[in-house]
C-alpha cells in the first residue's frame, strides 16, 4: 500500500499534461483547415436540410426532402445519376463531394421563423452541418439566411419568391436558385396583355407579409406599365381561411381582373372562394372577368381542384418540360417515388448539386471559396436552360415559365400546362433596381 505512487495530486498532474498533449494536434489541425465553421473532418461531409416537416406546408417539405435524398444518392454515386448526367459542369464524379461521402441531417422549420432558426442552429452547432438549405416560405428563408451569415455557413435557399431574399435582405452567404416576384411579373405581363388587352382594371388581394407585398408591388408595376389600372390593393391576414368577405366586394368595384397574391392554403381558399362566387362567369365593363395567380405551385393547385382551370400564373419549373435535363430528373424521381417532382423538389435538387459542384471546383468547403465559385457562375443542364448565378445579389437568372390551369387534365399530376417560356433577358433587372434596393450583400463570413 505505502509503496504506491498513485496519489490524487499526482494523478491530476499527469492527466493535465496528457490532456494538453492530446489537445495540441486538434488545435493545430483546425489551423490547417484555414478556420471555417464545421470544416469536415474524416471522410464524410454533413449537409443540413431544413424543410417544413410539420405545419401547413408539410407536403411541400416532404417533396423537398425526397429531392434532397435523391440528390445525396446521386452525389454518392447511387441511382441513375439524374441531372448530374445533364449538368454542364462535369466536376462531380459520383464519389461524394471532394472525395467525402455526403451525409445529411434534417430539421423542421414548421414554416415559422423562430422554429426554422432554432433547427438550423442545432444542425450547425450539434450536427456539424457545413451548409443549410431548404424551406418553403420567404419569411423563413430570410430569417435562416441571416442566421447562416452570422454562423459562417452557406445557405442555399429553397422555395422563396419574395424580392427581398436577394433584395434588401440579401446576404453574402446566401444563394437563391428559385425565381422571384419581379420575374413573375415581368414574365406574366406580356402574356396577360396578349390575352386580356391593355384596358383592364385589376383588384389585388395580397397575403400580408414580405412575399405578398413584394409580389403585389411587382405585378402592379408591370401591369400598370402596359396600361392597366389598379383599382384596389387589399391586404388579407395570413391566418385567413374564408376569403368571402374580401371577394364579395370585388365584382362591384369596377375591376375586371382579380390578382391573388396568395400562396399555399391562402391561395387554395381564395381561389376556391373566387370561383364559388362565380366571378369567372361574369362580364364586367363588357369583358370577361379574369383571375390571375402569379405564383403557381402544382402541389397547391391540387388542393384547389378544378378551380384552377384556365387560370394563368408563373412557375419556376414544371415536370412536363421536354428538355433532356427535366426528363432525366422526372425519370429519376418518378422511378424512385412513383410520382413526378414538384417545383420545390426541383429547386432544392438543383441547389444541392450546385453547392456540391461549387465545392468541387473551389477545392474547399470554406464558405468564401464556395461563394466565389458560385458568383457569376454560368451553367446549363438543370432543367431551366442557360442560367447565371449573378455575383451582385446571388440570384439565379433563367427562363421563367408562364403556365395555365389545364382544361382537360389526363392525370392527377397533369394540372398545369406551360403557355410560354419567357427568355431570361426579359426577366433580368439591374442589381440596384428600386424594388431590390436597400440592403447590402456584405462580405462572406467563414465563421470560426
Amino acid at each position, binding site marked *: 500500500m505505502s509503496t504506491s505512487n498513485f496519489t490524487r495530486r499526482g494523478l491530476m498532474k499527469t492527466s493535465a499534461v496528457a490532456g494538453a498533449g492530446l489537445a495540441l494536434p486538434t488545435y493545430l489541425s483546425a489551423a490547417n483547415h484555414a478556420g471555417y465553421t464545421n470544416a469536415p473532418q474524416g471522410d464524410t461531409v454533413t449537409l443540413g436540410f431544413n424543410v417544413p416537416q*410539420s*405545419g*401547413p*406546408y*408539410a*407536403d411541400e417539405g416532404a417533396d423537398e426532402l425526397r429531392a434532397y435524398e435523391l440528390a445525396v444518392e446521386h452525389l454518392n454515386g447511387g441511382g441513375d445519376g439524374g441531372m448530374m448526367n445533364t449538368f454542364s459542369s462535369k466536376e462531380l464524379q459520383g464519389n461524394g463531394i471532394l472525395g467525402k461521402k455526403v451525409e445529411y441531417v434534417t430539421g423542421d422549420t414548421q414554416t415559422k421563423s423562430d422554429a426554422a432558426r432554432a433547427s438550423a442552429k442545432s444542425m450547425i452547432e450539434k450536427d456539424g452541418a457545413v451548409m443549410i438549405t431548404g424551406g418553403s416560405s420567404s419569411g423563413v428563408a430570410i430569417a435562416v439566411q441571416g442566421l447562416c451569415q452570422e454562423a459562417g455557413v452557406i445557405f442555399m435557399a429553397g422555395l422563396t419568391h419574395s424580392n427581398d431574399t436577394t433584395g434588401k435582405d440579401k446576404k453574402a452567404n446566401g444563394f437563391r436558385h428559385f425565381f422571384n416576384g419581379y420575374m413573375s411579373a415581368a414574365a406574366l405581363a406580356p402574356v396577360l396583355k396578349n390575352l386580356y388587352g391593355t384596358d383592364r382594371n385589376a383588384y389585388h388581394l395580397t397575403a400580408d407579409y414580405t412575399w405578398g407585398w413584394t409580389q403585389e408591388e411587382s405585378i402592379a408595376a408591370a401591369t400598370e406599365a402596359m396600361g392597366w389600372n389598379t383599382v*384596389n390593393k*387589399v391586404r388579407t*391576414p395570413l*391566418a385567413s*381561411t*374564408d376569403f*368571402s*368577405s*374580401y371577394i*364579395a*366586394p370585388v*365584382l*362591384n368595384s369596377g375591376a375586371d381582373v382579380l390578382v391573388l397574391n396568395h400562396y399555399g*392554403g391562402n391561395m*387554395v*381558399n381564395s381561389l*376556391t*372562394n373566387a370561383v*364559388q*362566387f*362565380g366571378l369567372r*362567369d*361574369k362580364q*364586367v365593363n363588357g369583358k370577361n372577368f379574369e383571375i390571375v395567380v402569379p405564383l403557381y405551385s402544382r*402541389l*397547391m393547385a*391540387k*388542393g*384547389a*381542384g*378544378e*378551380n384552377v382551370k384556365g387560370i394563368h400564373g408563373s412557375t419556376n419549373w414544371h*415536370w*412536363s418540360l421536354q428538355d433532356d435535363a427535366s426528363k432525366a430528373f*422526372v*425519370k429519376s424521381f*418518378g*422511378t424512385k417515388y412513383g410520382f*413526378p417532382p414538384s417545383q420545390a423538389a426541383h429547386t432544392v435538387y438543383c441547389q444541392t448539386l450546385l453547392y456540391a459542384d461549387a465545392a468541387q471546383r473551389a477545392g474547399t468547403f470554406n464558405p468564401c471559396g464556395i461563394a466565389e465559385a458560385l458568383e457569376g457562375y454560368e451553367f446549363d443542364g438543370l432543367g431551366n436552360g442557360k442560367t447565371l448565378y449573378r455575383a451582385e445579389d446571388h440570384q439565379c437568372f433563367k427562363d421563367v415559365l408562364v403556365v395555365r390551369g389545364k382544361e382537360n387534365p*389526363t*392525370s392527377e*399530376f*397533369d394540372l398545369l400546362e406551360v403557355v410560354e417560356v419567357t427568355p431570361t433577358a426579359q426577366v433580368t433587372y439591374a442589381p440596384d433596381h428600386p424594388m431590390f434596393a436597400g440592403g447590402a450583400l456584405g462580405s462572406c463570413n467563414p465563421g470560426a
Partner: protein
Amino acid sequence: MCGLFSNTLVGTMDAIILQVLNGLDKGSAYALIALGLTLIFGTLGVVNFAHGALFMIGAFCAVTLQRILSLSKITLSETKTNFLGQPAEIKTPYVESWFGPEMGAAIIDWSVPLAIFFSIPVMIAIGFIMERGLIKHFYKRPHADQILVTFGLAIVLQEVIKYFYGANPIPTGAPDAFKGSFDFGLMLGYEANAIIYPYWRLVYFAFSALIIGMVFAFLQFTTFGMVVRAGMADRETVGLLGINIDKRFTIMFGLAAAVAGLAGVMYAPINSPNYHMGMDFLVLSFVVVVVGGMGSLPGAVLAGFMLGILESFASMNQVKAILPGIDQIIIYVVAIIVLLTRPRGLMGRKGVMEE
C-alpha cells in the same frame, strides 16, 4: 351634391347587404360549433377544446365518402402512357360499373350531401368513444385539466388525420347543381352583379338554421330534452330523483359531436378541408361561447351570427380605410367590450363557472 351623396349611399348599401349575407354565412359555422360546445359545457361541465377537431373530422367524413365512392377498378391502358412512359392507368369507379355511368357520376357528384348520412353515425360513435374513453375521467378535475386534456386530444386527432390524408387541402366540391351564384341584386332592383352570393353558401346557411332549429326543438319538446335541460339547471337534484343523468349526458356528447360534424361536412365545399381547419375555428368558437354567455344555447347562436356579421363588416374596404387591420382584431375587440359591460356574456346565467 345630393345625387353624389345618394350614389355613394347606394354604392355602400349593396356592399352592406353583401356583408350581411357573408356574416350570416360565417356566423352559421360559428353558431353550429359554438352550439355543440355549449351543449357539452352546459350538460357535462367540460370545456371541450377538441370540438374544433370534431368539426374537422366532419369535413373529412365528406372527403372519406368521396374517396370511398370514387374507389376505382384500375386497368392498364394499351394506348396511353403515364409520365414515365409506362402504360397509363385507367380508373373506372365501382359505382359507375354497378349503377351505370350516369347514375354513378351523379352519386359521386352528390357525395357531400350524401356524407351527411355517413357522418351522423360516425360522429356519434366518435363522440361516445371520446366521452366514455377519456373525458368521463375528467369530470371531477379542475377546468384547467379538462382544457389541457381536450387540447391534447385535438392535437392528436389532427396529427392522425394528417398522417392519413397529408397536409395539403383536399378539394371536395359541391354538386354541380349548386355551383355558381345567385343574383340578389336583381331581385332588389340593383344592376346585375351588384349583390351576388354563391348557392352553396346559401345552402349552408339554410342547413345550419335547420340544424339549430332541430336541436332547440329536441331540447324543448321531447321528454329526453326536458330531462337534459333539468340536468343542466341542477344536476344533483335530477340525480336524486332517480334519473340516470350520466347516460343522457353521454348521448348529448354524441349529439354535440354530430352537430359539429355536420357543420364540417357541409363546410367542405366552401373551403377545401385540411387537417388544421379545426384549430382555425376553435379559438373563434370559444370567443363566441364566452360572448354569448357560458352555458347559454341561444346566447351561443346569437353571438355566432353577431360576430360573423361584425367580422364581415370589418373587412369592408371602406372600414379598413379608416381603421387598417381592424379585420384581424374585431372579434377580440367585441369580446373585450361585451365582457367589460356584461361580464357573464350576452345571455349568460348567474352561477355558471363561478363556483
